[in-house]
């Protein structure tokens, strides 16, 4: 079972941070800057965990989640958003097939807890 995680976010800083946090949790990471690239990497790497932003200019996270779910019903998907407070995007993500959702910004513990909720056999 691979422990690779795929991070999808159009912000390089957010990708770097999430990859760093995931590294502390024992994951090997790969990042994509949009949903299109994310789907390509998902098909290529078959990661054990996907963490994707919802708001991206190219290939938004909602479509990305739907597309991944079409091909893989089991891989844990965590949706994250920086504008999720009142707009129910996170709830939408859950309806579309994400296993958990987290609002940016978040701490290491918040991310760790979220991963634990979505992946019972999470690494770390």
């Amino acid at each position, binding site marked *: 079972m691979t422990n690779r995680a795929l991070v999808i976010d159009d912000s390089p*800083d957010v990708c770097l941070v999430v990859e760093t946090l995931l590294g502390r949790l024992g994951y090997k990471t790969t990042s994509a800057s949009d949903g299109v690239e994310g789907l390509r990497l998902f098909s290529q790497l078959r990661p054990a965990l996907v963490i994707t932003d919802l708001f991206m200019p190219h290939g*938004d996270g909602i479509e990305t989640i739907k597309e991944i779910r079409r091909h893989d019903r089991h891989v844990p998907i965590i949706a994250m958003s920086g504008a999720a407070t009142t707009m129910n995007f996170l709830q939408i993500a859950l309806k579309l097939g994400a296993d958990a959702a987290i609002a940016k910004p978040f701490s290491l513990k918040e991310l760790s807890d979220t991963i634990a909720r979505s992946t019972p056999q999470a690494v770390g």
Partner: protein
Amino acid sequence: MPPALNRRRVQPCPQRSPDKTLGVSGEIVRPENFVHALVHDLNNLLTPILSLTELVRIGLPHDDASVPLLSMIEQTTLRARNLVQRILTTGDGSPNVYKSVDLSELLRKSLPALAASMPSMIRLQHRIDPTPAIFGDADELHRVILNLTTNAVHAIGQQCGTISVSLSTETNQNSTDRDMVRLVVADTGSGMDDATRRRIFQPFFSTKEPGHGAGIGLTIVSTIVATHSGSIRVISQPGKGARFEIDLPSAGKRRIPSVT
């Protein structure tokens, strides 16, 4: 921006019909899209501050002199996060509350203020039938009305035009399913081609000039409609305006008496 959006009509504005028209001249102030985009970007900026500070702190010995300072950065960032989140909430910042909502009453309360914020060259007309209550969040449904009418104002631009808002009941004849409440917002603006129509609910898609909207207003609309188990469709052609039809399931069969 498609060329049609820049086209101005040369004919004079028709006179407003007093019995069907709301509103007076005013200034358009629609910061909502900008605010959401700003909040999104602010939260992205706060992410490395919060997470990386925490990582540095937990890598230090507990008695390191920098630990209290780093904790202060974390606590300050968390306060900033809460402050940013409050921008997106209304009132006391409480989460969304679903309850029985009379959309006709909501419209009657909302339309005068919306009309007052529209340019004088735009006429707002409405037909609000008594409809069944729906189960939803009144604030979010108000946002739907606000975003659709704002979108209509932008589609009409600096020319004369009409925005029509209607509310009716679509009776379900086929089964025991609930009746649907149909909200329609139509405009006489520039309209759109099929390629544009297919993309208008995508985040950050906009036909407006940079600085005139983040392109998430209609994304918010479609998301709110989806969370209310509703559907939305758009009928439009270039130069022939646009018509947004939203169907929302009623909370029950019983009709609500007309608000007069």
